């Protein structure tokens, strides 16, 4: 070989070596970096005037030029939750005694925790394993535990906080609550009525009285020698205990709404009902005086008496705090937990819920609900539709309520009193699926004054999709899908029926029909000119993923179909060839994904327990989670209008939260240092940061407070 050729070969070889070195080095460094993990130190809290961008230096590990940062409202008081203690199961009641907390579990008996160091609770012991404990009552050194079908268990409290099992009192029916007074125990025994036991000798309790009330007795409370007994759903009976063995009924408090819970604190009776909380003064215990009522509750499911405050679990989704001193409007606090019992000590709250353990909340950091707005609905909000700042909400009680988003306050117009399941609109027509009540059609051309123009009682649907003004597609659950010709609104005609599909949602894009089905996944049909649905293809996730997912919602856009896939998260499906739909990507999302919408390359997914997840779908094959706004009790309703996200939250109504904001600039300084400039949101509040790199994301709660 000649020398020039040799030189060229050597040069090429060397250049190839350099390239290989670069490539291998890059892969190796990437691998090494990935093993370092992604972490973030908590940045210094900033309080910034609204309208001013915030510049934050982030220090941590694993940053890259691809790291993205977004800002989302701290809906859930994450900042205030300073710790948690992992406990399994659902908790019904709690009791504070010194620095011990006694937690009544739905299936796990009683657990004793030492909270001498509030941020580091310690589990001391478990008692009555496997039992259901509904209520705890303390009198002196004894605990009286209402154990449902197992009656009442009596435990003695030892000086070290531990317990000694003294006796069990069996009841023929469910023991739900009990109170001790003067050697007698009063037990709310559900359908068994009010039971009175003589417990002068604890180990030989003796049933001395049974008072049948004709309805289930669910709660008993004592105040000033009077017994307050919750009878049925709408009544509290007041008994005088001048003769403890034979309580004497002297008064009944009746309620229009369903009564869920009640508590007595400092001569005041707080009654939680379906729509709010009523406060009664017990200056005259025999005749409670209504002092005040708070009505803006979603559903006051449980009420707890703390040291200073009254706590209400609103729809088991948020905590509302009523200050017993000033009796001001109860603030709403989201805590990413379904609060079922609360213990209050001077600086902290201990909140237990379902399967989320025990949360330790710093009371000073608690902020009221961070949502831009909360729109209460009378029933359970299931779907919503917004047009020109008018919002239509399908809910379980009102059917459809109409809300003026510009108006102050919580006024609304009820358009229907029947069950509202789903909404679909086309131009000036709004179709309301009312489940078994059929479909109602509104003309919404006049803002704020919709008119019913058609009622189709024979057409039942879970969800709807309108195709121009000619057809309406009805998703009917196990009854499949119906294609209805609505060219004559007064005489709708069913043109085609797909009866062998368990359809959960249906959507239209052009002449293609996308059906979310329970067992078959995504199904694609063509709406033919002869008003028939022709199956083109279907798609399911591979086994065993398909055993966990349920396509609950479909949203077609730009050759893609976004599927809210139940437990498996969101699927992005390429449907450019409808006969062979292809899964481009799948994003697991915690909870059960119920609804998906795509706006400006961002997919918004609501998940029953996971809240709102915002995903960048610019590259559908590699979608990136931008933000997760943790919320609970989400139903299907979801709409993004401008920079606000409207989500239906069942009994909590509709919650409006700002769209997460991406960082204006992200300056990569090193793997351990990132500087971001965050644009100011339009809405004040405490905001959290979500920092994502290619594979991981970190959330830092409550970083910036825009005022």
């Amino acid at each position, binding site marked *: 070989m000649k020398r020039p050729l*040799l030189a060229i070969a*050597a040069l090429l*070889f*060397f250049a190839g*070596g*350099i390239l*290989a*070195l670069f490539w*291998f*080095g890059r*892969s*190796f460094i*990437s*691998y*090494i970096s*990935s*093993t370092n993990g992604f972490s973030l130190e908590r940045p210094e809290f900033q309080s910034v005037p609204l309208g001013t961008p915030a510049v934050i230096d982030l220090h941590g590990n694993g940053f890259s030029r691809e790291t993205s940062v977004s800002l989302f409202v701290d809906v859930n008081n994450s900042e205030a939750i300073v710790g948690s203690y992992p406990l*399994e199961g659902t908790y019904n009641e709690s009791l504070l005694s010194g620095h011990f907390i006694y937690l009544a579990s739905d299936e796990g008996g009683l657990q004793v925790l030492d909270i001498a160091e509030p941020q580091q609770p310690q589990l001391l012991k478990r008692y009555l394993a496997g039992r259901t404990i509904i209520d705890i009552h303390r009198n002196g050194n004894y605990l009286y535990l209402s154990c449902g079908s197992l009656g009442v268990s009596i435990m003695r409290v030892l000086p070290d906080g531990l317990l000694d099992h003294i006796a069990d009192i069996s009841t023929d029916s469910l023991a739900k609550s009990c109170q001790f007074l003067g050697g007698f125990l009063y037990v709310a025994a559900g359908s068994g009525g009010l039971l009175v036991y003589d417990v002068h000798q604890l180990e030989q309790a003796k049933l001395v009285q049974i008072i049948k009330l004709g309805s289930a007795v669910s709660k008993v409370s004592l105040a000033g020698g009077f017994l307050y007994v919750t009878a049925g759903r709408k009544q509290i009976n007041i008994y005088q205990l001048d003769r403890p063995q034979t309580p004497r009924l002297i008064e009944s408090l009746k309620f229009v709404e369903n009564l869920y819970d009640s508590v007595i604190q400092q001569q005041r009776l707080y009654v939680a009902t379906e729509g709010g909380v009523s406060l009664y003064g017990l200056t005259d215990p025999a005749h409670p005086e209504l002092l005040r009522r708070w009505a803006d509750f979603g559903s006051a499911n449980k009420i707890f008496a703390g040291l200073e405050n009254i706590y209400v679990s609103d729809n088991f989704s948020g905590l509302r705090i009523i200050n017993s001193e000033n009796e001001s409007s109860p603030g709403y606090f989201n805590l990413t937990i379904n609060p079922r019992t609360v213990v209050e000590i001077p600086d902290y709250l201990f909140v237990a819920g379902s*399967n989320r353990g025990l949360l330790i909340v710093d009371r000073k950091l608690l902020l009221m609900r961070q949502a831009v707005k909360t729109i209460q609905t009378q029933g359970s909000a299931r779907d919503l539709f917004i047009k020109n700042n008018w919002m239509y909400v399908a809910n379980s009680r009102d059917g459809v309520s109409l809300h003026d988003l510009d108006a102050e306050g919580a006024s609304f117009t009820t358009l229907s009193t029947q069950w509202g399941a789903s909404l679909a609109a086309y131009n000036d027509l709004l179709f309301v699926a009312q489940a078994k009540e059929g479909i109602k059609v509104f003309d919404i051309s006049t803002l704020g004054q919709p008119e019913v123009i058609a009622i189709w009682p024979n057409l039942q649907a879970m969800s709807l999709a309108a195709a121009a003004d000619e057809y309406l597609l009805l998703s009917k659950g196990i009854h499949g899908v119906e294609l209805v010709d609505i060219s004559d609104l007064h005489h709708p005609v069913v043109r085609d029926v797909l009866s062998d599909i368990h359809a959960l949602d249906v959507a239209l894009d052009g002449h293609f029909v996308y059906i979310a089905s329970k067992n078959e996944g995504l199904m694609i049909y063509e709406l033919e000119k002869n008003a028939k649905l022709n199956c083109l293809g279907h798609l399911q*996730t*591979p*086994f*065993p*993923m398909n*055993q*966990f997912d349920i396509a609950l919602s479909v949203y077609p856009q730009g050759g893609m179909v976004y599927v809210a896939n139940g*437990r*498996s*998260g969101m699927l992005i499906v390429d449907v450019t060839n409808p006969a062979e739909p292809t*899964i*481009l*990507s*799948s*994003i*697991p999302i915690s909870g059960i994904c119920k609804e998906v919408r795509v706006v400006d390359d961002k997919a918004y997914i609501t998940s029953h327990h996971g809240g709102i997840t915002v995903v960048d779908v610019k590259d559908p*094959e590699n979608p990136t*989670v931008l933000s997760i706004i943790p919320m609970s009790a989400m139903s299907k309703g979801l709409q993004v209008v401008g920079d606000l996200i409207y989500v239906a939250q069942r009994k909590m109504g509709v919650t409006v939260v700002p769209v997460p904001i991406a960082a204006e600039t992200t300056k990569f300084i090193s793997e351990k240092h990132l500087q971001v400039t965050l644009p100011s949101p339009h809405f004040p509040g405490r905001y959290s940061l979500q920092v994502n790199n*290619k*594979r991981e994301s970190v959330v830092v709660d409550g970083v910036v407070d825009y005022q």
Partner: protein
Amino acid sequence: MMLVIMFSSVVLLFIIGSIVLVAEIYLIRAAQTQELRLLANTLSANSQQPLVLGQYSKIESLLASLLQQKNIHAAYVFDKKGVPVAEYLKQQDSQFVLQSLQNDFREKHKTFWSTSTTERQLSSKNHFSLFSPIHYEGKQIGTLYLLSDLTRLYGHLSGVAFAITLAFLLLISLSWLLAGRLQKPISIPLQQLASLMENISQAKDYSIRAEKVGHDEIGTLVDGFNRMLGQIELHQVYLAEHQIYLERIVSDRTAELRTAVTGLELASQQADAANEAKSHFLSRMTHELRTPLIGVLGMNELLQRTSLSEQQQELVETVQKSGEQLLHLISDVLDFSRIEAGKLSLELTEFELPQLLEDVVELLSPQADEKNLSLRVKIASNSCWKVRADEIRLRQILMNLIGNAIKFTSNGSITVSLNCSQSSDNSGTFVLAVADTGRGMMAEDMRQIFDVFYQTGSSGESSGAGLGLAIVKQLVDLMNGRIDLTSTPGQGSKFQVTVELILVEKPLHLQEIN
């Protein structure tokens, strides 16, 4: 050389690197399998109770801990019937998960998650998965599936490959630098030496000497080379002197030779001139002698026709006889002189060779009869060819040979034979032999018998001038033939002429026979 060394090093490093890479693949794979197995065992152990109790949410909580395992992308727990009851999915790389699940959960693998009681592994170029049975009190109650990527494997491999490539480049770079450094003390002197050798071999100048730049091995090599050049130069001087000496001798010898050659050429020219003059003279003389002799013989014949007395008749016959002998002699001398002068050329004609032989024998039969000799002819059948040759000269050869045989045989017989020893399409080798039972010849005679004017010792029997056999020899040579003589004193002689003649055709009567 430098390139060879570099190439060898690179190849060696490449081989070593490949071995290391392969070893790393197996090692990391084994480690990853072990880790995955350990993880599966831990998860299986913790899943036993919830699986038995049907607390699948607990299992999912357990699987959720896999979030910390970056390489685990999916996990499933199946009950003993193969029904999936708990799931864990990682948020990223969904395509990887989907493809891997499709690959792993094929129908043919169904036993892996339903009935298989042993651990099963599946892998592809980018995933590795494990089906681990979950046992409780000795019975299988379910199966755990873990899906792992091969990021760690490829990460490690990229590290090893990075190191190997770096080593490659360093090796090449250092070799290059080292070669550059070594070029001055090693390569340059060697290149100069090589260049000097080339110059010396081209210019043949052995007085040039290589420059010594050091006292190392190359310096020793230069010294050795210079010594070798010195010896070559010395030999060159010796050789030059010896050459001059030899050239002088050759020059002397050449001068002497040139003088001798000049003398010889002069003598040769003189001899040729003399010979030419002699031939010319003989030719002219014989011609001049023949003309009056023919006139004498003519007159003598005319005289014989006249009425002469018996004595006159005898005298006239004697004159006639002597005249004819003289004419014959003159003719021989004429022929010989013509042959020697190169003026005789063969004239080719077509004739039948056997016929020629018979004609000559018939012509000489009377002379044989006169001496009461038996003259026999043997013609072999393969020699009966019509040939193309000089008939007159062949006849002359036969006449001389047979005539001599008759002349030198007193009794007995003379046998003339013709044979064709070999033939081809165009020519044949013919052997003409004349054997007699005469007195034979001594070896001395046989050596000189073909010389001019040579006659055997008993010249009383010979009446010729000694030219006959010389002419025969000349004619046979002219025909590119050969004449052989065998003779035994007292028993006879045999002359054998071998000539190659052009074949024309077989005589007609022989053709018919054939």
